[in-house]
């Protein structure tokens, strides 16, 4: 703790090391394939199909997350009840459980021979090697991000506003739709963006539950396993580029809307 070594340069040096460590592989992958190859890869119907499948599955998971995660977030933000911290702990577990173990757990809960699996099977829905399995896996690993972010958003809404709205004759529903939701909207949108992105990024849980039909991260793994790095690289470039663009664009849009 001597004053000789100056503070700001050392902090900047360490911080930049990290920034370089994170950005260098990404830049390398994006620039690793010639543009022509990237273009060809994007037009490869298997690649394009898997990307669209990935994005739409994650979108469905996010919609389900919206319908159930927003109520949970609102309840956690506004109410105290016994067992609250248990639920708080439970809902964050998918972040910390190894993804392959999450896949096993989902297979156990939703597999062909499980109670739920048979029940849904009667409705014609099966979770193994099918789109619903992809959605379930994505929902499981990504919904904690939505709940945590939306909850912070609701907590930031002054409860006085809700109280006043009620004295002005509004029911709890109206208060939620006219006051709480609009004011937490930016946090909810951030949470939805994060959830969607996190769903797209999932590999371990999906690969166990649903190898086929292939989502893009699985296709990428398959190509890497079968043909090696050179064949996987353009797919990785495309996948990173698209998920990155969507994430950054959505985030920028969200903060612009906040500003205006």
């Amino acid at each position, binding site marked *: 703790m001597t004053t000789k070594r100056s503070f700001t340069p050392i902090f900047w040096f360490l911080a930049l090391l990290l920034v370089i460590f994170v950005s260098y592989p990404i830049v390398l992958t994006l620039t690793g394939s010639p543009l022509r190859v990237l273009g060809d890869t994007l037009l490869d119907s298997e690649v394009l199909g898997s990307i669209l499948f990935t994005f739409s599955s994650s979108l469905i998971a996010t919609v389900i997350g919206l319908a159930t995660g927003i109520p949970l977030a609102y309840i956690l933000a506004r109410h105290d009840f016994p067992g609250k911290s248990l639920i708080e702990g439970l809902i964050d577990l998918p972040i910390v459980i190894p993804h392959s173990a999450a896949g096993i757990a989902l297979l156990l809960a939703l597999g062909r021979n499980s109670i739920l699996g048979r029940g849904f099977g009667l409705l014609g829905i099966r979770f193994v090697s099918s789109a619903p399995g992809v959605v379930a896996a994505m929902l499981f690993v990504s919904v904690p991000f939505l709940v945590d972010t939306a909850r912070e958003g609701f907590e930031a809404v002054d409860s*006085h*506003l809700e109280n*006043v709205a*009620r*004295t*002005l*004759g*509004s029911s709890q529903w*109206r208060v939620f739709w006219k*006051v709480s939701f609009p004011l937490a909207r930016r946090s909810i949108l951030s949470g939805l963006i994060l959830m969607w992105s996190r769903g797209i990024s999932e590999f371990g849980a999906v690969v166990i539950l649903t190898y086929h039909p292939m989502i893009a991260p699985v296709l990428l793994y398959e190509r890497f396993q079968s043909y090696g790095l050179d064949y996987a690289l353009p797919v990785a470039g495309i996948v990173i580029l698209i998920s990155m663009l969507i994430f950054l664009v959505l985030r920028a849009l969200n903060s612009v809307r906040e500003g205006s």
Partner: protein
Amino acid sequence: MNRSSQLKLKDINLSVGGFSLVNVNLEIQGGEYFVLLGPTGAGKTVLLEAIAGIKPVTSGTIWLGAEDVTDRPPEARGVGFVYQDFALFPHLSVEKNISFGLLNRSTKAEPRQLARVERSGRTSSQNVRARVEQISSLFRISHLLDRKPEGLSGGEKQRVAMARALITDPQILLLDEPLSTLDPEIRELIQVELRRIHQELGTTTLHITHNFEVAAALADRIGVVMEGKIVQVGPPQEIFRQPVNESLARFVGVRNIFRGHHTIDREGGGHLQLDGLRLASISNLEGAARASIRPEDILLSRKSLVSSARNNFQGRVIQISDRGSFCYVTVRVTIPEQGGRSLDLIALVTQSSVQELGLELDQEIYAAFKASALHVF
């Protein structure tokens, strides 16, 4: 105007967080401007929220008008609420804020209000607009209707919050320290305005504050809350001149508080015996007593006054505390018979008087006050 209702609280008990209110009984007349006065943290806000239906009461009954509303949700009570922070909806324009209570009503919730609006032909947008314009001009905020709350000044926010609360024509208006975050100059203007609006609309109003001056300026009657209990209810002058206990006396700004023994002489005159000093009073108490004199009731002069003031003492100036326009002057009255014992009297005088009297430390001075200025309790 015709909706101003009486509020009756019976045996209300409340406990939220660290605060609790014990056995509150209170009756506020229709059209009355009632101020609940108490130090910050005395549970006043919780009481307002209970009346509004936001916080539940532990026990007791709340009547609004002729109805028992204890178990009704807030949207079915017909109260107007203005928080200290005004709680304007930040995502809505001033106009949308004000009209919120007309547009965002749940059907079941407001028989009176709906009836009222429908009489004039449904809640059409023209009707709403007309009503908003009417109340905005009453509050002189018509020029702000298109603005968002964010850019408004404290006084403007206060007016918008009041207009929003009053547009639904509530049975009672609940005000939670609505002046405490305003600058002093604005506060005075708004006070005048509150009085004007109350005279115009006549809505029963329950205003809570910790500021005695605000209470004195606005209230028909004042109720004082201390430690979760209502300790005194009465018109401002009564609270001000005859506080029921010492902590209340301190709270409303009395500086001279003494403990002594009060006796009645044969002619019926009251006297407070105080360490050998004898103060004339008009009280008829007997025994151990406390007494207070408001600093502005003490007159200072260089010569002993021949006047109606029954109490007249010679002393020495021991402190002059400059308060800008005024000074607190502390006069030490020494009692020779008691061997150097002394009594400090604090008088409030204007700067001009200080100059006129040429007041300075250690100077001999006479302090006088009427027997009626000595409040014995």
